[in-house]
């Protein structure tokens, strides 16, 4: 149990380190539904991965990247990425994934594992991928931090000031796609976005600068992983949902404490 626990812990912390800063931008840019749409398309990636006989994580990553590019372009040229379009894409991608998997004969898929994560099935060898992914996300985010923050504040002002919007957008969406591919095994398709949103929302109460919020969000995420995993081992709970519930508890405690202190 010790090795399982430590592997799961290392995987969860690797994920939380990436989702805190990235999730802060998802919150600031009000892109929760955007992330949800990418996450829902991940199951289609599983189906395509099986179909092409490639690594499933790679399949997920490719499909998420394709959907991310599609969404950025839709937004760029059509000004269409409304709730409705995202809703159509999100749910049709999920349904299509389920149908595609059902069509594949002789394929036994642990659907629950994909939908809600299976952290205890993470192998020590998976950790390389998770930490490589986290390093990629944090490194790229640091590199595009200033232009991305300027775009977040006012996109047209950033454009007039000479920021090239499209490459920064594409890079950001690609990072979300990478994170979702990473997170799928840990918390599952349906709970991925919670790891982006909830730690960031909880961190808001402590932060006076964007950077503080990003760092605190990563710490809150790590705390949720530790607490959630401990609870999962103690009471034999599903690990992904236990982590998300812990994150939500932290968020609720922080928010009500802030309310009680009479802050904004």
């Amino acid at each position, binding site marked *: 149990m010790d090795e399982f626990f430590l592997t799961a812990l290392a995987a969860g912390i690797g994920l939380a380190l990436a989702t805190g800063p990235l999730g802060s931008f998802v*919150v600031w840019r009000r892109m929760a539904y955007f992330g949800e749409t990418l996450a829902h398309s991940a199951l289609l990636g599983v189906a395509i991965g099986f179909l092409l006989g490639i690594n499933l994580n790679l399949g997920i990553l490719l499909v998420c990247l394709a959907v991310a590019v599609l969404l950025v372009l839709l937004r760029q040229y059509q000004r269409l990425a409304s709730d409705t379009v995202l809703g159509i894409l999100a749910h049709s991608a999920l349904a299509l994934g389920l149908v595609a998997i059902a069509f594949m004969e002789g394929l036994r898929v642990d659907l629950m594992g994909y939908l809600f994560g299976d952290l205890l099935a993470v192998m020590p060898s998976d950790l390389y991928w998770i930490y490589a992914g986290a390093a990629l996300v944090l490194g790229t985010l640091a590199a595009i931090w200033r232009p991305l923050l300027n775009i977040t504040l006012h996109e047209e002002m950033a454009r*007039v000031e000479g920021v090239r919007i499209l490459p920064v957008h594409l890079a950001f969406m690609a990072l979300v796609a990478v994170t979702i591919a990473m997170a799928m095994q840990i918390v599952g398709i349906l709970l991925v976005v919670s790891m982006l949103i909830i730690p960031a929302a909880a961190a808001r109460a402590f932060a006076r600068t964007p950077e503080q919020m990003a760092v605190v969000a990563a710490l809150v995420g790590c705390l949720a992983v530790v607490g959630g995993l401990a609870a999962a081992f103690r009471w034999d709970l599903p690990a992904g949902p236990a982590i998300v519930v812990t994150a939500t508890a932290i968020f609720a405690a922080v928010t009500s404490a802030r309310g009680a202190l009479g802050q904004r």
Partner: protein
Amino acid sequence: MSGPGTEQRAAGPLIRVQGVAVTFGDRRVLDAVSLDVHPGRIATLVGNNGAGKSTLLRVLLGLTQPAAGAVWRAPGLRIGYVPQQFAVDANLPITVRRFMALAGRVGAWRWQEVIDDTGVGPLLDQPLQVLSGGETRRALLARALLRRPALLALDEPAAGLDRHSQGALYRLIGGLRERYGCAVVVISHDLNLVMAASDEVLCLDQGRIACRGAPASVVEHPEYRKLFGPHLGPETAVFPHDPHAEASSEAATRSRAAGGERG
């Protein structure tokens, strides 16, 4: 012939717009508009709602692509843009100081100069989200100035401000041109308040430039009178840009008012 005016003209325009048309669906919002933005000159765009002022500004800034005509921008042109709408998500913790710093690295002396000129000093440690409309406009202006723009583009900077603040803002803008040597393109939504410091006033009507000229002469233009005449009340004012001329500004307001009643 010498002096700054000649030099600036020799340098050529910062932006040249020729015969530009913009259409949204079936609607033609700009038609056959030509305009040169010259270094160090203030151009004011006036017009009723839907006349095409904002669209013209967006064409100048490269935010809207025209359906016809040509837009030329000087290579490497640095623009400071103060948009009309500016709302930051409540979850983004950011102070005015940080917001300004995001414009890029600048020396301490320039930082202090901009703070003194725009009066944002007391706001520096406030979160962006708690500022009033006028304070937000000042913070945006301060950030734009930090970049040492060759052109300052202001989309209805006076919107939502009371008369007194509008006058103060216009005087500030007029003064900034003197101190920073930048060209200014400003949209004025209030037809009764047009800066005296403007070198050129362009009146837009249904996507076309109906008349243009210096502030003093353009108000006498028949097209201007036809368009805006009925709106001209006794408060009609052309604000001077000298910040020390408060008193004479009041006098000018009064004498204009008298003139307005006479005519």
